C-alpha cells in the first residue's frame, strides 16, 4: 500500500480534513487496511514538507482537524504514480517458494508434506476471505479488494499444485557442482525428489 499517494488521490477533487481522508480511504478499500487519524496527519505533514499538499486552516468546530489541499506539484506526482508500473519483472521474495525449494535439500523432510501444509493453510485463509466477501455482497470496494487477495492466494495454491505434480513425475533436482576448495570437493550429484 502506498498511503501517501492514496491520500493525494483523495485530495484531488477538493480540500479535505484528516478525519474525512481516513474515512474515504477505508470506504474505498473495503476497510481491509484500516488507518488511524494520527497516521493520516503524519503523512500529510510529510507531503506538505515536500510541497505536494498545502495546509488551508483548521476547523472551527474541531480544532484538532486540519484542512489540506492538493498543490499543482502534488497533482503531477499523483499522475506520475498512477502511470508508474507496479511490476518490474523481478520475482518477489516469496517465503513459501523459498521454503519449498529449501525443503528439497533437507534430508529427512517430506517435501510433499511441506507442500500440503502450505496448501491447507492457504485454503484456510481463502475460506475466511470468502466468508468476508459473502457477507460484503453489495460493497463493491470490499469485494474488489478481497478478489485481489483471493486471486493472489489462488495463484499460490496453483503453484503448490504444480510443484506437487512435477515432483510426482519423478523429476530430479540437479544440485550445482560445488566450487573446488582445498581438495575436498564432493562429487556432483542429482537428488531424487520425494
Amino acid at each position: 500500500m502506498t498511503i501517501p499517494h492514496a491520500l493525494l488521490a483523495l485530495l484531488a477533487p477538493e480540500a479535505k480534513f484528516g478525519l474525512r481522508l481516513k474515512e474515504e480511504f477505508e470506504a474505498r478499500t473495503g476497510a481491509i487496511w484500516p488507518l488511524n487519524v494520527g497516521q493520516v496527519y503524519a503523512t500529510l505533514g510529510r507531503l506538505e514538507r515536500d510541497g505536494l499538499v498545502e495546509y488551508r486552516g483548521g476547523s472551527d468546530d474541531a480544532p484538532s482537524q486540519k484542512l489540506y489541499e492538493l498543490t499543482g506539484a502534488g497533482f503531477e506526482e499523483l499522475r506520475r504514480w498512477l502511470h508508474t508500473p507496479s511490476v518490474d519483472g523481478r520475482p518477489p521474495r516469496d517465503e513459501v517458494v523459498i521454503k519449498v525449494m529449501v525443503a528439497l535439500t533437507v534430508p529427512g523432510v517430506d517435501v510433499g508434506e511441506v507442500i500440503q501444509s502450505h496448501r491447507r493453510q492457504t485454503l484456510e485463509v481463502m475460506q475466511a476471505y470468502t466468508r468476508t466477501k459473502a457477507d460484503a455482497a453489495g460493497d463493491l470496494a470490499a469485494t474488489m479488494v478481497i478478489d485481489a487477495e483471493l486471486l493472489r492466494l489462488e495463484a499460490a495454491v496453483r503453484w503448490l499444485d504444480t510443484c506437487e505434480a512435477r515432483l510426482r513425475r519423478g523429476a530430479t533436482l540437479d544440485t550445482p557442482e560445488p566450487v573446488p576448495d582445498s581438495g575436498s570437493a564432493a562429487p556432483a550429484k542429482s537428488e531424487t525428489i520425494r
Partner: protein
Amino acid sequence: MSTTLELCDVTRTFGSGSTAFTALSEASIAVDAGELVAIMGPSGSGKSTLLTIAGGLDVPSSGSVLFEGSDLASLTRDERSKLRRSSIGYVFQELNLLSSLTAAENVAMPLELDGLRAKQARRVAMAALEQVGIADKAGSFADDLSGGERQRVAIARAVVGERSLLLADEPTGALDSVNGEDVMRIVRSACDSGTAGVIVTHDAQLAAWADRVVFIRDGVITDTTQQMPGPESLIIADGAT
C-alpha cells in the same frame, strides 16, 4: 446439527486381478445438514468416484454409505432410485439438461417422475428458478440459454423440492469468475438453508466457499482444513504502508 451423509471406510476398486485399480481407499467423511464440504484434488485423485458413491449412483466395493442414518446397501433398488430422485440433487460438469425442454420443464421433471402433478411440479420448479435468479427464463429452451443460465437451471433442478443433499462436480464449469461466484453464492445459500452440500473441484477459489475442504490424493483422504478465526484477524494492522 444432524448428519445427512456419512461414508464409512469406503473403498472402490475397478477391475480384478492384476488389472485391479483402487480409485478410493477407506474414505470416511461425514457431512451435516447445512454444511458445505469441498473435496479437492487433482485429476484422477478419486474425488468424482467419491461423489458418485455418495449419491448412490455407484456402490462401494467395501464400506458403507449412510444417508440420514439409513445404509444405502440395505435399500432395495427401487428405494434407492426414489431416494436419489427425491432427496439428492446432482450438478454434473455436463449439466445434462434436456434441450427439448424449457428451463421450467427441466427443473420440474424430477418432481413429475416422483409422482407430483404437472401443475404443482411447475409451481415448485418456478420457486426454484426464482431462488437462483432466472425465473424470467422459465420458458426458454435449454439450448437458448447462456452458459451461466444453464448452470443456474442445473442447480435449480438439483435443489428443487425437499432435497436434503446437493452433490456437485465442478459446478461452475467453464464460467468466468464473476458468474462462477454467482453459482457458488446459490450453492452456499442452499446450504445455509439446511441442505448438506458436497462439491468436488480442483479449483481453490471454488473450494474456499465451503465450510471444510477435504484433500484427496490417490484415492486417500489426506488432510482437512480447520476453520480460522473471524475475518477481522485478516485485516492488516494500523501502520500499513
